[in-house]
């Protein structure tokens, strides 16, 4: 049924992504592709993979942004973008077939590919671009939060986290229950002021992004430990340099 669960789900599994830590290496996207092309939504089709215009289905895309406050201060931020498993997921309610659904037990948003008709309306309804259409299979695909990994009892307990989380070499990604205020991820969000993306869209996303910490600033608003050049002094220079300096000044 494409109606959302009547009450907000008690458990809200999701990701917390630290934009201060992410180095933009794309490892999470690659491991996501690796796991999921053999998992629940397999395959994650590639079109023309070795040709001139390679393209394909990915659940996780890593953008890089630059910010500019107009006063010479800028930051570079690497930004992984994937499904936010929204509480009020518009991709679920627009689905005409019941293929798109949100699980009551943990809040994960999934697609039943056996009944999806590939009308693409869910991808129009999602502001985050979380859903990608598989041209070869004719159905919509999306992040499953590695539902086939996080509950998998054949794996050691430490491995029961989404592939993007277990692979991140920098530790920028955390996984947990954001519905429990005492969980590690909830505490992390509270401590760092984690934000929702596009709250004005009314989707109530579960995933949170931790914004970059304010940069430390040195004298006159410049970066700390910046060298002070004093170009007018030849003190400490070699004999020839001092000689040239004397002639030219």
């Amino acid at each position: 049924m494409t109606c959302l669960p009547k009450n907000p789900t008690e458990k809200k599994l999701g990701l917390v992504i630290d934009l201060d830590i992410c180095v933009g290496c794309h490892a999470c996207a690659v491991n996501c592709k690796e796991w999921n092309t053999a998992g629940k939504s397999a395959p994650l089709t590639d079109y023309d993979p070795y040709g001139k215009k390679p393209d394909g289905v990915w659940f996780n895309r890593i953008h890089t942004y630059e910010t500019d406050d107009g006063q010479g201060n800028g930051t570079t931020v690497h930004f992984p973008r994937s499904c936010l498993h929204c509480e009020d997921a518009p991709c679920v309610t627009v689905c005409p077939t019941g293929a798109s659904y949100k699980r009551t037990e943990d809040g994960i948003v999934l697609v039943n590919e056996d009944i999806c008709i590939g009308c693409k309306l869910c991808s129009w309804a999602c502001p985050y671009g979380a859903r990608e259409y598989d041209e070869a299979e004719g159905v919509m695909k999306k992040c499953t939060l590695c539902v086939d990994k996080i509950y998998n009892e054949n794996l050691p307990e430490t491995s029961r986290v989404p592939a993007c989380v277990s692979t991140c070499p920098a530790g920028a990604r955390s996984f947990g229950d954001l519905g429990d205020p005492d969980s590690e991820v909830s505490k992390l969000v509270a401590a760092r002021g984690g934000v929702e993306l596009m709250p004005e869209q009314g989707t109530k996303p579960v995933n949170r992004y931790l914004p970059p910490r304010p940069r430390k600033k040195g004298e006159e608003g410049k970066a700390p430990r910046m060298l002070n050049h004093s170009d007018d002094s030849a003190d400490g220079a070699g004999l020839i340099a001092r000689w040239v300096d004397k002639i030219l000044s």
Partner: protein
Amino acid sequence: MHPAKSVIFFTTASGAGYGMMVWLAVLAALGLVPADMAFGLFAFGIGFTLIVGGLLSSTFHLGHPERAWRAFSQWRSSWLSREGVSSVVAFLPLGLFALSWVVMGENGGNAALLGLVGAAMSLLTVFTTSMIYAQLKTIPAWHNGWTVAGYLVLGPMNGAVIVLLLAQAFGYAEAASLLRMAALGLLVAALLVKLAYWARIHGGRVTSTAGSATGLGHLGKVTMSASPHDTDNYLLREMGFRVARKHAAKLRPIAIVAGFLLPFALIALTHSIVGGNAAVLALALAWLLCQVGLYVERWLFFAEAKHAVTLYYGEQAV
């Protein structure tokens, strides 16, 4: 948004077909047209061809057309599902109305009543179509009442232009004069609705920004310095369509002149100045121009609409 030909054809064709049904029911209820078989065959033939053709073409862009029947199941939450249900339910009264008119030679009384029920279902179906677009917060250009008003006025307008041509060709003067007034009135109303729609979407209203999309707005202007992928992906092909915006300023006047102004002038001419075969010719030309104008209008409706996901790919505001 990518203007898929199948969806442009679907929304214009089925809108025109449902609009025709509305006017056929009105003519029957007012007793302005006899239950003539030839007229009925022409009118319902064109009307149902437009509706069925439109509905079929809307399944062309599906990944699994053979599963389309599943789309009738989620009417409690989904406007697309409601549209499917409404369009199928509408066939029942409309089909009986058409049979009664063409086969039984009866279009008054109960037949007219069936026609009016069918007309109401037709308008309901057009309304559900408009809500598929108007419900999407991700596309602010569509998420407003002008979208709904546009569909509800353009369908009956297009239908009136076509039924007017038929009534004139078959020599039903009374029906033609009513339809002429209706078509002229709806052409003006539709133009005003579209002008209001364009004024709104180009009015600088902002729903979401690159700053709110990334949560980095407090740091200043956010620009993308590296894309996740070198070639266009599904998101950019489907929702990042840019070609039209370059030409939108030129295409809007074309839509206005061909879709509304010229048909208005031609139809007004047939009021008193032009008569006989010349009037039929003028109305046929009015229909043709109107259809071309509506295709351009519908193409712009998709192509001009910016989707929130483009904020992740360099768009600053939607």
